[in-house]
């Protein structure tokens, strides 16, 4: 019943931040393009990966972390149930991911065209191309490639948003000591204990298993070659699992003291 105002609130806050992010990023890219033009020699080709391709998924992680933790009290004050908070939060994350993927792609095209005007050959190779299309440039994309690229990058951003969500909620639900233990334990575990365990006990089995899992979900182990459709399916499954766990954490969460 309050899903509409909740979603409206999330989108308003989100797009303000997104607007600032893209304003800064676009200016920076244009500045880089101009600098490259000034320093290019002859007709050399400049390849770059635009910061938006990495910045946007990072933005989605941060949004996922903040969405419930930062705004829960406000929602409770306005009589919004946690169920509605969750639904509108998930919707906003999906909208954000798709919107940013589209904007990122448009920026890459625009920067490429701008490079053309400045006689700087600027071509982007998105991660999708590197993984599934032998690293062809955006300028060589077919219409099908464009659509698949947008869906792939959107789902990647959605997945990261959900990861941010569950991370934020885990820390939100932990006590003060729990947060310290989790923070130190996670960092220490990954940086110190895991390499030691891999070297001495498991003989690299964990790393190999993790690598196989990543290759599998990304569809890079398919017998007939890299397949983005596998990522479409696996990302939805992963998001459903992470989303379900996130809801379980949220449904009885109490507002934290400031």
């Amino acid at each position, binding site marked *: 019943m*309050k899903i509409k105002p909740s979603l409206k609130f999330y989108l308003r806050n989100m797009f303000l931040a997104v607007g600032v992010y893209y304003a800064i990023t676009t200016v920076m890219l244009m500045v880089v393009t101009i600098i490259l033009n000034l320093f290019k020699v002859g007709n050399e080709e400049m390849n770059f990966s635009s910061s938006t391709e990495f910045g946007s998924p990072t933005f989605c992680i941060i949004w996922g972390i903040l969405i419930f933790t930062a705004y829960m009290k406000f929602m409770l004050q306005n*009589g919004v*149930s946690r*169920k509605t908070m969750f639904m509108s939060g998930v919707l906003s994350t999906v909208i954000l991911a798709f919107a940013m993927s589209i904007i990122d792609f448009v920026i890459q095209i625009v920067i490429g065209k701008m490079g053309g005007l400045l006689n700087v050959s600027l071509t982007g190779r998105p991660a999708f191309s590197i993984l599934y299309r032998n690293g062809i440039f955006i300028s060589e994309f077919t219409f099908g490639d464009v659509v698949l690229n947008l869906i792939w990058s959107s789902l990647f951003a959605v997945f990261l948003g959900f990861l941010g969500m569950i991370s934020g909620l885990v820390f939100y639900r932990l006590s003060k000591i729990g947060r310290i233990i989790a923070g130190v334990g996670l960092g220490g575990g990954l940086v110190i204990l895991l390499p030691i365990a891999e070297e001495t006990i498991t003989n690299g089995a964990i790393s190999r298993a993790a690598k196989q899992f990543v290759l599998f979900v990304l569809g890079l182990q398919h017998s007939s070659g890299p397949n983005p459709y596998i990522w479409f399916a696996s990302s939805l499954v992963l998001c459903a699992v992470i989303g379900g766990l996130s809801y379980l954490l949220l449904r009885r969460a109490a507002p934290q003291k400031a």
Partner: protein
Amino acid sequence: MNKIEIRQVSKNFGDTTALDKVSVDILPEKIYGLLGRNGAGKSTLLNVISNRIFADNGAVLVDGVKSAENDKALSKVYLMSEKNYYPEDMKVKEIFKWTKEFYGNFDTEKAYQLSELFGLNVKQRSSKLSTGYASIFKIILALCLDIPYIFLDEPVLGLDANHREMFYKLLLESYAEKPRTFVISTHLIEEISSLIEDVIIIKNGKVIKDCSSEELLSSGYTVSGAAEVVDAFTKGKEVIGADMLGGLKSAYVIGTADKSQVLDGLEITKLDMQKLFIQLTNS
């Protein structure tokens, strides 16, 4: 019947029992005083009713529907609490705007009028308001909402006497204009005693009184006079407390005063709500 039913609600925080099988009905279109000492369980009860926290046992029903995690039921309830639940960077006028979005029945024009009356700067961020003005902006939100049940937890915290007087007057005007239920939780008992129709007193997580103000105040009387005379008069009666001042004594007695037994030098007056509250809630 439309009402809020609180049924056997219990809530513990670790080893502390904040609410112990509380059962009480909050009827429509009434002004309640929710009274209790510090730590009695008032805020906990309000937080459970408004879905901010969950009861360990029991249920809260709003107009027959469980309110926990129910947007429709919660749209009939508003809690103005001591703590500020609004984002720090949000301005007062934005809060008005979003309250209207979430509740629908919010009179934005009246909110701006009241802001002017109280001298509240609507362009100020809510976190930057002084204690008094933080209370004022929350009072304005509550008074401009046309929903059936409004809970005010320490609404006059930090308010000077002039603003408190203004608030009580506006509350009564708002209630007369659009009758709805107000539940006021406060420590300033004497100030609200003339406002409230019904009283709920909580002590150690339990409801010890749930009746009309009239009934509460007529449940006993105060007898004042020379200490020995008062003692003689109150012998065998249920005395819940007494105050001494030199040789004079005031005793608070439960029951009806038998005028024929009143001796010379004794004065019988109504029970003072604050004094009665103190006597009822003293350990």
